[in-house]
Every structure is written in structure tokens, then in C-alpha cells.
């Protein structure tokens, strides 16, 4: 074990405090609206804290550090693109303003108004499928961090992550979005403190000049065969094709990713939502760049200390490096912060996908509406089911390539089609249900082919940018051709502002 008793005390105090706060909020839950969207009572700063905490998970820290380790600073360009997408949408209100004004609880619910209930159901299936697969690796990556940062035996990973999941499940099942908001707030503070202090310590430890010159020298010595550490558009790094896909992908993420949109839908009005987007935008540069820099520092550190030790890889090098260089107390703060990041992300994501399954897949199939208690019970049972799925999927699934690519491709299963449906539904009166079906099905082909090939024929893997980029192209093509080829009437959506 590399953690001292002081470090463990910090971790335990945080976990107990967070759990108590989350459980305390259950007293205010009266119905499914309170449970899933906090009764739409969220103001801008609390929305920012909750959004930032949910989107900064331990899984984020792990994959951004892996990108930094493998591609240097170039790997962190994705955060810059994401920040630009948030700012653009925050300035224009593109998609999120009419979406919030429509007063819906989930995106598929909006599709019912525009394309009918069958499209809503199918969209709900795609949203849940993409979201759950995407979330499937969270526990494994989080566990990898804890094993290598704390020095605990690797055999404890499953048990520790199960306990953590049960704790998160407890307050999420009982308190829903209200508990998630309170715990997100605590986690926002702790994660922010942990990330800032760790980043400063890492720069002091490794030295800025040493970091830069080692990256430059390594690339020069490789004869340009390694990824360019500073220029993401360089052919050895991402290249323009990947960057263009990422821009469209991130635009789709900030307008359709249900965990982000659930914060938009929980705001008091659309003005609050756009303000929240503008103010939170730059946060996403640091979300990639700061933990990414820890990964870059780990690369430099191990390069100058005899190479990467046996048993470590580009993913686990960062936590092992931090455990070697951070002092007592700060290591405890960091581990507590990372547990906080893991808890806020898992709780936010579980609640979001449970809401989609309840609201868009199960409810439309019910002949008689459930009572208030029945709705709550059903949503809580779905949360339990998601937790069980996470445990089993996370244990056996082997990642095809790096973690970020897996997350991007699984998210793409629904991002391309739902993004297309949203834009067409909100801004193109000619769009109809046939176009929506075509977009949903065609948009999923590329990512699903990528995932299947990775399992059955890894030697014939297609590039991620081809799988992801083609899904956007096919979804838009399906919507346009399907809508223009048929004359099915579709009511024009005219959202009314709801407080």
C-alpha cells in the first residue's frame, strides 16, 4: 500500500460525508419529476457545478492521461474542440434553446411530438444501448486507477469497485437527481482542488522545460515515426480526418448527449441553459489537458527512470507515477477527488440512462399509466438493473484499442442519428418519420460494425474516424432521402416555453 493512514482518513471522511448528504436529500422526493430532473429548480451555477462534476469522471482522467502518454499534447486537442462546441452552442442556443423550451424530460420524448411514438421508442432503444455500452468500462478504468495509485492488490479491484458502486447506487436510488445535485456539488469542489494541486505538483516535479524538451527529443529521435507531440493535425498524430470527425462528434455531444442534456432540461429556462454552456465551456479544455499532462509527465518520468516497469501500460503509467511523486496528504486528497469523480459520473450516468429506459422505452408500452409510487419504484428497479449490467460487462469486456476511441465509437451509436433527428426535427419542416427511421438505422451501422469487427476479426479493424464519420454522413443521408422520398405528413414542432 502506498497510501498513509492520513491519506486513508481523508478518503473515508469524504466517502461517508458524500453518502450522508446524498441520503439526506431523499426526504424531498415526491414524484418522478423530482427524481429525474430535480423538479426543474436548478439555477446556473449549481447547473455548472453538476455538469462539470458529472463530465469529469475517473474514466475521463484515465483516458485523457492515456492520450497524453501516447500522443503528447496533441492528444488533448479533443478538449479544445469540445470547449469550442460548448461555446458555439452557448452563444447561439443551437438545439438546446428550442429543446429546453419544449419542456420535455428526455430527447426521445421530443421526437414523439415531431415523428410519432414509434420513433421515440426506437430512439430510446438506441440512446440506452449506446449510453450503457459507453458506460460499461467506467468501473474497470476507475478500478485500474485505484489499484495503481493506492498500491492495493489487483485482486481487490472487483470487490472495491463493487462496494463503491453499491454506495453510489444507494444514494442515487433513494434520492435521484436531488441527491446527485448535492453530491455533485461536493465532488465539484473536491475534484477541482485535487486537479489544481496535483497539476501544480506535477509541473514542479517534472519541470516544464524538461517536459517539453524530452517530448521534442523523443519525437526527433524516432525519425518522425511516433505521433507528433504538439501538432494534432500532423499525419503521425490524429490527422485532419479524425479532427473533422471530432468537431462534428463534439457538436453532437454537447447538443444530444443525454447526461449533458439532462442538466439543460433541469434548468429553470433556456436562458439559464445557454448561460451555463458559455460559462462552462473553458472547463473542458482543462478536463482533457490537466490529467492529460499527468500522462505526459508519466511518459517523461518513466523514460528517464529506466522505462515503463513490467505490468504497466500507457493507461496505468499515470496513477503509478503520481503515487511515486505526490506527498502524503496530497495523495489522499487526490484519491478522494478521484473517487468523487467516479461517484459523480456513475450516479449521473446511471440516473440518466434509467430515465431514458423508463420514460422512452417502458412507459410508451404501458396500457395503463402507473401511479406515482409505481413510477418511482420502476425507475429505481431500472437503476438496480443498470448497476448489475455495469458489474458484469465491466469485468469481461476487453477494450479494442485505446479507451477514448471505444467511448467515442460507442457514443456514436446514437449520437449521429439522434443529432440528425434533432436538427431535422427542430429546423427542417419537411423531415418526417420515414427519414427518422432511416437516420436511426443507418447512423448505427458504422459504430456497430467497428465494435463487432474488433471482437471477431481484429486484424480487419476499420479506422475509428471512418466508422464514426460515416455514421454522421449516413444518418443525414437517410433523413434527407427518406423524408424527400415519402410524403408522410408531420406536424411542425412549435415548442412553448415552460418554466
Amino acid at each position: 500500500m502506498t497510501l498513509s493512514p492520513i491519506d486513508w482518513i481523508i478518503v473515508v471522511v469524504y466517502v461517508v460525508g458524500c453518502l450522508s448528504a446524498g441520503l439526506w436529500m431523499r426526504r424531498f422526493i415526491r414524484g418522478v419529476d423530482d427524481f429525474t430532473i430535480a423538479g426543474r429548480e436548478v439555477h446556473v451555477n449549481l447547473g455548472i457545478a453538476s455538469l462539470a462534476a458529472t463530465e469529469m469522471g475517473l474514466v475521463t482522467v484515465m483516458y485523457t492521461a492515456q492520450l497524453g502518454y501516447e500522443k503528447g499534447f496533441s492528444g488533448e486537442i479533443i478538449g479544445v474542440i469540445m470547449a469550442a462546441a460548448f461555446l458555439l452552442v452557448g452563444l447561439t442556443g443551437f438545439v438546446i434553446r428550442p429543446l429546453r423550451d419544449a419542456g420535455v424530460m428526455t430527447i426521445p420524448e421530443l421526437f414523439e411530438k415531431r415523428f410519432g411514438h414509434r420513433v421515440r421508442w426506437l430512439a430510446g432503444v438506441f440512446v440506452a444501448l449506446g449510453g450503457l455500452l459507453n458506460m460499461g468500462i467506467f468501473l474497470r478504468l476507475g478500478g485500474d486507477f485505484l489499484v495503481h495509485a493506492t498500491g492495493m492488490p489487483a485482486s481487490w479491484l472487483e470487490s472495491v469497485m463493487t462496494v463503491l458502486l453499491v454506495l453510489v447506487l444507494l444514494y442515487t436510488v433513494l434520492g435521484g437527481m436531488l441527491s446527485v445535485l448535492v453530491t455533485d456539488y461536493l465532488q465539484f469542489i473536491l475534484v477541482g482542488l485535487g486537479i489544481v494541486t496535483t497539476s501544480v505538483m506535477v509541473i514542479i516535479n517534472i519541470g516544464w522545460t524538461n517536459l517539453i524538451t524530452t517530448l521534442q527529443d523523443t519525437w526527433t529521435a524516432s525519425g518522425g515515426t511516433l505521433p507528433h507531440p504538439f501538432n494534432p493535425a500532423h499525419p503521425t498524430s490524429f490527422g485532419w480526418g479524425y479532427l473533422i470527425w471530432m468537431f462534428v462528434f463534439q457538436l453532437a455531444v454537447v447538443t444530444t448527449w443525454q447526461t449533458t442534456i439532462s442538466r439543460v432540461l433541469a434548468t429553470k429556462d433556456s436562458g439559464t441553459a445557454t448561460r451555463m454552456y458559455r460559462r462552462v465551456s473553458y472547463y473542458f479544455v482543462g478536463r482533457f489537458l490537466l490529467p492529460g499532462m499527468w500522462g505526459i509527465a508519466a511518459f517523461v518520468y518513466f523514460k528517464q527512470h529506466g522505462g515503463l516497469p513490467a505490468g504497466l501500460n500507457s493507461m496505468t503509467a499515470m496513477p503509478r507515477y503520481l503515487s511515486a511523486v505526490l506527498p502524503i496528504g496530497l495523495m489522499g486528497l487526490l484519491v478522494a477527488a478521484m473517487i468523487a469523480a467516479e461517484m459523480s459520473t456513475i450516479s449521473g450516468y446511471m440516473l440518466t440512462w434509467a430515465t431514458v429506459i423508463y420514460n422512452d422505452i417502458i412507459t410508451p408500452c404501458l396500457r395503463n399509466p402507473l401511479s406515482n409510487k409505481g413510477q418511482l419504484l420502476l425507475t429505481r428497479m431500472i437503476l438496480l438493473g443498470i448497476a448489475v449490467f455495469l458489474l458484469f460487462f465491466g469485468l469481461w469486456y476487453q477494450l479494442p484499442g485505446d479507451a477514448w476511441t471505444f467511448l467515442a465509437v460507442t457514443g456514436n451509436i446514437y449520437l449521429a442519428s439522434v443529432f440528425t433527428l434533432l436538427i431535422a426535427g427542430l429546423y427542417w419542416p419537411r423531415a418526417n418519420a420515414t427519414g427518422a427511421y432511416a437516420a436511426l438505422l443507418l447512423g448505427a451501422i458504422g459504430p456497430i460494425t467497428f465494435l463487432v469487427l474488433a471482437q471477431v476479426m481484429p486484424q480487419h479493424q476499420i479506422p475509428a474516424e471512418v466508422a464514426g464519420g460515416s455514421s454522421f454522413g449516413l444518418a443525414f443521408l437517410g433523413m434527407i432521402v427518406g423524408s424527400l422520398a415519402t410524403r408522410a405528413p408531420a406536424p411542425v414542432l412549435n415548442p412553448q416555453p415552460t418554466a
Partner: protein
Amino acid sequence: MKDPYVLAWGALLFTSIAWYGFLVFFIGARAGKELKTLIKDLTIARPPEK
């Protein structure tokens, strides 16, 4: 070290550290007040069940 890419990444990195530090205190304080108000409003609108 005068490579424009290096300068740009350095600027982004150090601005991010400063921005995160600012956010933790500024947004933290304001969000804390909003959370307090939210709980107060909820307590009035929905008194705890016995």
C-alpha cells in the same frame, strides 16, 4: 521552446490551472448559495414526510 505549438499548449495549460482554481472558489461559493436556496425552497414546498 519558441515553437508556436508549444507556446499555445503552454498558454492553454497554465490558463486551465488558473481557471480551475477560480471556478472552484467562484462557482463553488455561488453554487453553494443556490443549493442552500434550493433546499430551503424544497423544505417549504415539500415538508419532510414522517
